Structure formats: C-alpha cells, structure tokens
C-alpha cells in the first residue's frame, strides 16, 4: 500500500482507478509525470524495473480486447509484476461464474491489482467492493476507460507541450463511448476545453450538464481546435437508426483530407483504435504525420506502468 492510500484526503492516485473523476489535477499530473519518467527508462536496453517484484496483477477480461490487455500486460511485466491473464468468454450471467465469485477467487489468490475490462457499465465498481487489491478500470460498458484518457492526455501533452488551455474536439458516438466520457472528465480536470461533436442521436441525454461544449457541426469546430479525436463508430448503430448509413456518417462526421486542411497547422489527429478506416477516419488521415495513433499505443504502456506503479509501488 502506498503512503497516499493511507491518507486519501491528500489527493494523489489512491486505492482504485475506476473513473477519470477519481483523479484531481495533481493526481493526474503525477501519473503523466511518472509515465514520462518510466518512458525514458524504457528507452534503455534492459526495459525491466524491479519495482513490483512479487506483486500479482490480474488482467480480468470479460471482453475481447487484445490491444488493451497486451498493453496492461506489458506494463505490469516491465515493472516485474507477476501477471495472470484471466479471460472470461461470454459476458452474461447465465454463463459461468458470477463476478462476485470470480472476485473472491482472485482475492484468495492474493491479487494485488485487478485490471478489469467488462461489457457492463459499473462492473469495476462492483468488483472493488469484493476485493482488497486495487481495481483498475480497463473499460466498462459504455461508461469509462480512464487509462485511455490518461494516455490520450499524455500524448497531447508530449505533442503540444501543455494541456491547460488546449481546445479538444471529440467526434462521433459519444453516447456509447467510454473513451469520450473519461476524456471529457480528465481533460476538464487538466484545464483543456472539450467540445463533443456528433449527430444529436449520438450525444447523451443530459450532456448539457457535462463540463463540455457540444456541436453537431464538425466543420464549424475544426478551425479552432488543437486536437481532434475521432471515436470508433460501430456499424451496427445504423440498425438502431442512430444514423442512416456509413456513407452519410462519413460525409458528415468522418475525418478526411478536406477536413484535415481545415485544422490549424499545429493540430493533431487522434483515435483510440481500433479504427474503421473510411468511416470515422480516412486512411490518408490516419497515416498522416498529424496522426498520433501509433504513439498513443506506445504511450499506453508507459501510462499504465505509471498507474500500476503509483497504485502498488509507491511514490516516485
């Protein structure tokens, strides 16, 4: 347990990471600074640190997400933690063991941290009631994905030098996006101005009470932004009449070369992956020098190292 955990009033990263809202500006900045230090270390020929030797990190994945699981696995291993990957096929209660029983099993095995990806919003919050170890939310339903927001913030800060005062447009299926929720919260905490852009059907009811602006008009927003982040849009949403067709979506909200030209020169293009090339982002935009998509992946490992390090290992 860290010193910080024993005095939660001091701020900092404590106990669990369930929501980006768990982090105040100081704690979030501490994660980003720690990630930067750890990134520098990983440029060495021997990438491993002994910090979490003897600690056990469980990756509990109820959804297939090879990218996120590998990222957490690499992060934990570089800190010398023992990693157990626990994939549960099928996410319904009718199949297999309940989340509570799995939690009690992990508890009995002495998991120091449980990284959980789950199709149900709030599953990490439930898990946190049943295990003593730290719970890290690696994406829960359509709720949050706080380490994605941290790696996005890290990427923006390393590309643009700051977060405070940045203007960030997040474009697409905000309604179903855990990435958008966590980014809106974290970027607001860190002083950036966020505009959520999408068709009205894909902006949540009550979004006017979020600490963000909203717009239905991507072209109007682009000339003023420092960052534009495209969200993954699932083609199934068409079946539910959220929008008429992939083509119309791409025409109105896709990042293509013409829209790239509307951005200020310094602005960057982000995407949490996996991409639907040709739908929310055109291939030439995804592969352009302004795109940070590959960096985001690399930064993900550093940020997740920082989170595990601070939750389990102690202060820098």
């Amino acid at each position: 347990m860290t010193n910080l955990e024993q005095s939660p009033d001091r701020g900092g990263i404590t106990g669990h990471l369930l929501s980006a809202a768990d982090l105040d500006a100081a704690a979030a900045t501490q994660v980003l600074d720690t990630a930067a230090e750890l990134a520098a270390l990983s440029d060495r020929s021997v990438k491993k640190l002994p910090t979490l030797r003897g600690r056990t990190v469980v990756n509990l994945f109820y959804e297939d997400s090879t990218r996120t699981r590998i990222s957490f696995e690499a992060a934990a291993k570089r800190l010398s933690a023992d990693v157990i990957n626990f994939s549960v096929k099928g996410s319904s209660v009718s199949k297999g063991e309940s989340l509570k029983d799995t939690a009690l099993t992990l508890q009995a095995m002495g998991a120091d941290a449980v990284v959980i990806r789950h199709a149900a919003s709030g599953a990490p919050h439930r898990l946190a009631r049943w295990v003593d170890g730290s719970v890290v939310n690696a994406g829960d339903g359509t709720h949050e994905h706080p380490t994605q927001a941290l790696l996005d913030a890290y990427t923006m800060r390393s590309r643009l030098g700051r977060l405070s005062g940045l203007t960030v447009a997040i474009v697409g299926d905000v309604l179903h996006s855990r990435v958008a929720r966590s980014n809106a919260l974290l970027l607001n905490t860190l002083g950036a101005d966020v505009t959520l852009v999408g068709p009205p059907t894909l902006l949540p009811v009550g979004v006017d009470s979020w600490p963000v602006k909203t717009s239905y008009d991507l072209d109007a927003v682009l000339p003023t932004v420092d960052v534009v982040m495209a969200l993954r849009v699932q083609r199934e949403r068409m079946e539910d009449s959220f929008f008429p067709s992939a083509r119309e979506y791409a025409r109105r909200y896709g990042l293509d070369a013409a829209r790239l030209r509307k951005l200020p020169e310094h602005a960057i293009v982000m995407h949490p992956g996996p991409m639907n090339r040709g739908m929310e982002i055109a291939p030439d935009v995804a592969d352009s020098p302004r795109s940070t998509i590959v960096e985001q992946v690399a930064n993900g490992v550093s940020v997740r190292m920082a989170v595990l390090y601070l939750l389990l290992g102690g202060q820098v």
Partner: protein
Amino acid sequence: MTTYLIKGASIVGAEPTDLLIRDGVVAAVGRDAAAPGAEVIDADGLIALPGLVDLHTHLREPGREDAETVMSGSRAAALGGYTAVCAMANTDPVADTAGVVEQVWRLGQAAGLVDVRPVGAVTVGLAGERLAELGAMATSAAAVRIFSDDGHCVSDPRLMRRALEYVKAFDGVIAQHAEEPRLTVGAQLHEGELSGRLGLAGWPAVAEEAIIARDALLAGHVGSRLHICHVSTAGSVEIIRGAKRAGIRITAEVTPHHLLLTDARAESYDPVFKVNPPLRTDTDVAALRAGLAEGVIDAVATDHAPHAVEDKECEWQYARPGMLGLETALSIVMSTKSLSWDGIAERMSRVPARIAGLDGHGRDPAPGVPANLTLVDPAATWVVEPAELASLSRNTPYAGMELPGRVMATFLAGRPTVLDGKATK
C-alpha cells in the same frame, strides 16, 4: 375464536377508544365496550387503521420459491399492516389460467395471514399476443377482478382495447404496466443526466407517459376501467389528472420507493436500487407526493418484488429489477409526511380495496365491520435490517435507514396475524 378488547386505540387519528373484536367482526367501539374473558390488548398511543390493501405484490410462488413464497410474503404483508394483497401474475407458470390463480388463492388461504387475491395475466404467458382466459379466472374460486401483464406492457393497442372491453362483462379492471417497449430497449436507469454519465441505457419518462395517454384515451373510448401501475413521473401525474377531469375511469398507484428515492442512488451501481420503472428525479418525487395527497394518484402500492441474492449481487445491467416493499411501505409513506392518518387510510386501504373490489377490506373499524385492521405505533422508530425482514429475500433499498412507525398488531377477520410486533405464525 378468541375475543379481543383493544384498549385506547385512536381510530384513524381520532380520540382514543376501545374496540371489541369478536367472531371476526368489530363487535363494539367505545369506552364501554367489554366482554367477559376477552383478551386485552393495550393500544395506548397506537393508531388503528383499516387493514392495508396492496394492489401490487409479487409473491413469486409458483416458480421462485427461493425468493419468496405465499407464506413468507404473507408474513411480510401482515407485519407491514396489510390484510389483503393482490398477487401479480408473473409467476412460473404464469397466472394466466383458472388453475394457477386458484392455486395461488388456496396457498393464501392456507397461509392464513393475509387475504391473497391473485391478479390474472391479460395475455397468455404475458407474451402480449392473445388474451388469456380472463372470464375463467374471474369465475374461478379466486374470483379475479384485476388483470395485469405487470413486468410487461400490453403494448399492442388493439389487444389493449379488446382487454379493456372484454373485462367489462365481470367488472374487471386492466392494470397496465405503462412502458412503451420500443423506447426502453435495454433500459437500465431513468434517462437523464445520470444515465448519460454512468453509461447506462436510459428509460425515458415519455415511454411511460405515452402509454398512459394512449390507454386513457382507449378506456374513454370503450367506457372501461383502467388502472395504472407504479406511476413514476411528473408527466404521468399530469396526464392522469387530465384524464380524470375528462371523466375517464382511470385509477393509479404509486410505490413507496418512487415517493422517496431518486435515481441518484444508482451512482454506486448497486443493483438494490434497480427497479422498473426506474427511480426518477426530485421533481418527479415532488409531483408524485402532491398527486397522492390530492387524489390524482389513488393508492400507494408496494410493487414488493423479492429477488434472490444472486439476482442482485452482480453487475447492474444483469440484475433483476425490483425492491422489497411490504414491511416498509407504511413507514416510508409516514416518512414522506405527505398524508394525514385519514390520507393514509384512504390511499393505503379504503381506495385500493375499492379498486380491487374487496368488500371486507378498506373499512374503518366500526360496529359490524369485518375485523381487518392494524395497530400502528406512530412514536416508534426502527432500523431496517435486511436479514431481519420476514421476506425470504434481502433486496430492500432502505437497509440501515431509521424509519418512523411500527406495526404492533394486525387482525385478519378477527384473528391476530401480528401481535406485539411479531407474526403469529
């Protein structure tokens, strides 16, 4: 049959007096009421209410006897001050035939703690496709008068129209679970700021209001009685107010939890707060309280919905919706301070008894009236301990809360079902 002399009870808040209970009826009321050999019950400081009547109870038997049985639910009801409960039809098998409703009715008789009045399903298997044999259920021993697919909306307007018309032949009433299913696909929580923030699919108020408006118009068109289950939104109160003004024969109920709790409880993702219709907002709670006091909403009904631990100790979206209510209803209504004793008697006993067609219930204790009554200590408070409730399930949203009012005794047809705050069996 033992004769009881209840001394010093205040009947619905009036000056304290004595009640003699003999041969199943209130034999005498007044300070001179006496009978040799009567067992005396000291009711000093207690309020005597007509036995409470619940229009909306899930007893889970047959099918989910691990969550509740007619016996355990009856005990919970008696402890809550109830002398009659209407048992909803969504059992397994569904109460959509004379056989099943008679079985439930007989189980209630055997338990002997509360009058169990089965509700019949409107459609076969609650599937919303064709009418169940409503007439057979009406003429069965269970004498069903309320029909409901509760848990499901009778969403097909033509089928709803037919059901409303058909039950006129035996003075039945359709109790609608008002939820337009196409607007609530996957819905988890009241659609509002919180559902958006928590990433839970929203259950919009309009899905309830649209059905109430449609069904009020249908009931008016065919001249039938309509009852609306668990009204949960301010907009619904307005629609019902308008329908009543227009002379439509519509009645409505509200649950204790919708009178007290809001969607803010979902913040913890603890599914004990998951219920259908969902907890709403402060504005809705205020409108429901006002509508109840005014009589736009006719009755408080518990929607007592026991669930096994494993159906609640899980992820929010996999949990079953529903909350326990029988043992806490009166205390919750008291805690809202929206109703006088007369208002409580009206909304929790007299009016629901009329809606359900229960002649022996919902009558203030007076000479010659069937002795269905309850004695409440208004000064007592109690802390809700889930494990101490009589229900087989534990899913009360009030765990740990200190509530006002304690049921000290309940009489069903002259026999005590609760004495000294304990069930007699």
